[in-house]
């Protein structure tokens, strides 16, 4: 790392760290949804990235509608579109579970193929509806700009907002999964489906809502994603592998592990990107992850579940 003074290095780390926080937020939101679907239900949802794109496109649609019909509402629409992204993506997830996934619970590897097919169909639908070009919503004024912390370090405001959103969603998921009676039923169904059914839990309903919740959170990730990059039909595919790595590396079914692994992966990639090219940073990060997983296949924080 020759040529940089310690002060400059510190600033570089801080700046790249903050840009890594946006990546971390999106990865974590994606991974939370996937951890619920994959960790709790064992379904490999290859279409998860497309559910994120659904959220992103919902935000874009809201932005264009607001701009042409209620321009005065522009500063506030973003909050509403986050909620809407959750609802739309969740509803589509609900539908996908009902039509497709519920027939495949006993064949986890086949869910992978079926959801890959689903992702192809969704991608082509995006292309037909919104065009092949990348789109991005008009962000409200208050999300733009940066907050100058020192003269060398600028903190982008959209990054802070997305981080805040991520914290709120994470706390919400934590409450829902570990403190509410609904979460108790979800975890019971994961541990022993037959027994859960015997004590009166409607396991099919639980499955459907768990899958919808996971997809809904992916929708929120999509809304957050629009603040840092533009959305195209294949945006989802770019993130799906990273997201799976976050979930597997964190140890599926461990919320804390998911957070820790999303943070370390996003930061490693973001800080390395400054020193070596973006593609090599990705190669390096993924390679280290694969090597760690070979020695510790159960991930960082394995939950103690009987298999």
């Amino acid at each position, binding site marked *: 790392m020759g040529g940089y003074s310690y002060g400059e290095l510190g600033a570089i780390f801080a700046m790249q760290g903050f840009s890594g926080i946006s990546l971390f937020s999106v990865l974590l939101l994606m991974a939370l949804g996937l951890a619920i679907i994959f960790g709790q239900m064992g379904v490999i949802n290859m279409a998860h990235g497309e559910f994120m794109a659904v959220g992103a496109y919902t935000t874009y649609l809201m932005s264009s509608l607001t701009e042409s019909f209620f321009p005065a509402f522009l500063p506030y629409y973003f909050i509403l579109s986050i909620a809407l992204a959750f609802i739309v993506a969740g509803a589509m997830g609900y539908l996908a579970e009902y039509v497709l996934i519920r027939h*495949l619970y006993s064949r986890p*590897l086949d869910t992978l193929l*079926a959801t890959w097919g689903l*992702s*192809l169909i969704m991608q082509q639908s995006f292309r037909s509806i919104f065009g092949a070009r990348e789109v991005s919503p008009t962000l409200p004024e208050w999300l733009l700009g940066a907050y100058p912390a020192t003269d060398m370090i600028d903190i982008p405001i959209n990054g802070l907002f997305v981080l805040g959103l991520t914290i709120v969603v994470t706390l919400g998921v934590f409450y829902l999964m570990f403190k509410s009676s609904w979460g108790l039923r979800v975890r019971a169904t994961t541990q022993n489906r037959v027994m859960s059914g015997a004590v009166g839990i409607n396991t099919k309903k639980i499955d459907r809502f768990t899958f919808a919740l996971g997809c809904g959170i992916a929708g929120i990730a999509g809304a957050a994603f629009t603040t840092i990059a533009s959305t195209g039909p294949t945006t989802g595919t770019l993130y799906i592998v990273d997201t799976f790595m976050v979930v*597997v590396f964190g140890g599926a079914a461990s919320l804390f592990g998911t957070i820790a692994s999303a943070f370390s992966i996003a930061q490693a990639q973001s800080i390395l990107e400054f020193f070596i090219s973006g593609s090599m940073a990705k190669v390096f990060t993924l*390679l280290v992850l694969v090597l760690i997983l*070979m020695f510790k*296949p159960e991930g960082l924080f394995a939950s103690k579940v009987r298999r």
Partner: protein
Amino acid sequence: MSFVYDKLLGGKSGAIGLLVLSVIILIVFPMLLDGFRLNLVGKYLTYAFAAISLVLLWGYGGTLSLGQGIFFGLGGYGMAMFLKLEASSPENTAIQSTPGIPDFMDWNQITALPWFWEPFSSFGFTLLAILVLPALFAYFIGVAMFKRRVGGVYFAIITQVIAVILTVLIVGQQGYTGGINGITDLRTLNGWDITSDSAKYLFYYINCGLLIGVILLSRFILTSKFGRLLLAIRDKEDRVRFSGYDVANFKIFIFCFAAFVSALGGAMFTLQVGFMSPSFVGIVPSIEMVIFAAVGGRMSLIGVVYGTLLINFGKTTFSESFPELWLFLMGGTFIAVVMFFPNGLAGLWSQYSPDIIKKIRSTFGMANPELPLSSPGLKETNS
């Protein structure tokens, strides 16, 4: 004689199936198709190698690899590196600032041949590398994962990540690998023009020969005791382990063999198509290979060849005339195969063929023998 009949051909139905396939690819296609279309079929048949490797690994072994593109790519790149070095002799590349190195290296200001390119100037080494390196790479992955009892979903995800790593690496290091365009402009093999029509016909027949050879070899593996164990591992891994078998070693072997078969397909791909690029290495081609196997029937060595041909014919036809519809159709096919025909085309055939054959026989006034129906059904794998 009975050894050949039972072990290599897989009994009567296997022998007939292989005969029909051989007639179609060796006689019917060359008679009906022009040079360009035949070359296209040859390209599709190289994917069939990867599909066959997935029958062994996934259909019988129960281990899904989403990284067969890695091995297909390693085989293809190995062959492409040799052909590229031959194409970039100092005489051919005299206009470059450094003559004698591949053109993309020159464009990326590289002035000497990198060390890992050096051995690929020898044809013998290249052949050896294509046959051994992918299998060796698979061995390392296999030992690291199967010995630690990583399997099922985790194995699928990690092989997929390795495919991503390799693609990003190839695209990122374009001075050493040719980048996103891949290694192009391959002309001769040991001085022999590979773009000529006669060469294309010859490669097509070599390709078909290798494919049939691979089917025979795979059938031998599957009908042996090892094949029985493979099925047993797929259905009840723990029970096999408790019976005293080292499950990991069996899985490692089949993974290496699958890598070897895929690499063979990759090398033949480069020879017939004349280039190799990272778009045959990454996630999408790897998953497409799984789809070929799924559509053809993951338990049928012969079925997957038809599956590969069908999907690729469909892809070429539809993406030429209705590019918008193709992805919908492809996605729909995935879902339909998984949900309604988990045994693919081969499953449909074994379900309906006895009736059809009976009908044909009775139309021609022949007596109907009792057909023994023995097709190993698809068991639900819980991992």
